[in-house]
């Protein structure tokens, strides 16, 4: 059951998840990251790594994010792999606090 990056990533894009991925299956868009569902080995290392819990295992995905399943697959196909952490977007820390983390 692959893991899905939801659009909760938008506005923060911490990229803490990237270096915990054992198979480097994250792909980078300008605003958020996406997981290649075919490369994902379901290890769940990324889930606790995200400071704002933007990543879910498919079976735990809240209904309002169902649309992200297809989007991750599609975008991962088009976008390049990201292997190293990057700076979060400006305002990421504030947003994290606002979300209660």
């Amino acid at each position, binding site marked *: 059951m692959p893991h899905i990056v939801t659009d909760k990533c938008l506005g923060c894009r911490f990229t803490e998840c990237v*270096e*915990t*991925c*054992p*198979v*480097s299956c994250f792909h980078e868009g300008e605003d958020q990251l996406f997981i290649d569902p075919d490369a994902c*080995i*379901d*290890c*769940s*290392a*990324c*889930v*606790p*790594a995200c400071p704002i*819990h933007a990543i879910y*295992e498919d079976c*735990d995905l809240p209904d309002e994010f169902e649309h992200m399943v297809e989007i991750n697959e599609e975008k991962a196909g088009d976008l390049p792999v990201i*292997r*190293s952490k990057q700076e979060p977007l400006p305002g990421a820390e504030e947003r994290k606090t606002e*979300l*209660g*983390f």
Partner: protein
Amino acid sequence: MTKLGSESRPLRVAIVGSGPSGFYAAEAVANSGLAVEVNIIEKLPAPFGLVRYGVAPDHPKLKKVTMIFHQIAEKPNVNYFGNVKVGEDVSLQELESCHDAVVFCYGAETDRQLNIPGENLPGSHTATEFVAWYNGHPDYKNSTFDLSCEDVVIIGQGNVAADVCRILSKSVEELNKTDIAEYAVEALSKSKVRRIHVVGRRGAAQAKFTSRELKELEALPNCLSSVDAEEIALNAADDIELADPTNYNTVDCVEAFKRMSEQSDANTDKEIKFHFLLSPTAFHGHEKLEAMSFARNQLIGEAFSQAAEATDSTLGIPCGLCFRSIGYRGKPIADAPFDERRGLVPNEKGRVICDDSNLNRNLYVSGWIKRGPSGIIGTNRADSIETVETLLADLERIENNSKAKADLSLASLLQHKRIPYVDYEHWKRIDAAELLVGKTLGKTRNKFTSVTDMLIVANLDVSGIDYDYPGQSEAY
């Protein structure tokens, strides 16, 4: 600017251990942009550490990470040396004489003791031993477990305990398709085990399972997961812990335990029963394990630091087999520094902290032997990235302290000492043979459990080696 890392003087790094942390350290060094030579040294013939010998046979998807390790091993500046034990076949000083830096990534292979009476009774084992045994680790192939008893106790409530539960409760048909050791399926096919008691020292809100592993147990066919409702009552501190937005894993686990407590008896062959707030006080039995005694605990302290405190109340559980699953523990290697209390190599972001007698040695560490035996496969990638960042920042210091001789290579050193090392091409032959034999048996892979057989299949010279498997060679 330092010359080290240039084409005329590549940075030569020895990585001790070929599990995830070792491979990710190799990847980080190889991707540094410098000219490098990376040698991954592994004491067993086969690489991959706990990915091969720890991850449960019924979790094959996790093992796909070996495809990444394969890509790393095939990089032109990365070499694999299996069947080479540092501290025995080659000393740390010898490694330092042909490398600029050494990175310890050898993991944590032994276990923590309970230190209670009767711990060494036959029937008292560690989960690490059981896991290594069913995964075909050459050093554990001769282990035996008395599976003729109906009740098994597992001390500890983490994912290793969950693995042991599944292997003890799954059918032979299911196990037979995996890469589990043949001798293990045979032993498990005769198992009389009916009830597995998984015992935790603290409460339901402190169990260390990931919710996915716990739900996997809940979903096992023919095996009921049960818990007594009284044992999962939450206190005020638990409520605070569960309200924390980062604690979603525990919230899921507590919900799973609640579902289990509300189930009516299902008519299943086997049962996994979770017990909370119990600490083992002794193993009992005449010549072998017959029962264990426990002290009932209560939780004291603030949220997020609640501790188990024994009350006067006690409980006994009859059992013939016990697996303690309270964590792996690291061992020292050669004459490298070691923190006996924490069971790891003392370090600062991966740079080994050396005492006066060891100053000016280019020693680094990553993985479980750096931060302790916690985390999963991917955790080690981030960890190795940090260690190698530290190493690369130290480049000038490394060059000044390096004892590497330009004309000495690890390969020539090992050849001179007549150590039959397994290189990556050799490993590919062993790998192919395991897959081939596995296919004929309807399994994903049939692992060789004899080192000698692996060397034979790799086409290495085994003259002068004692054969290490009683009975018939698997090479036939």
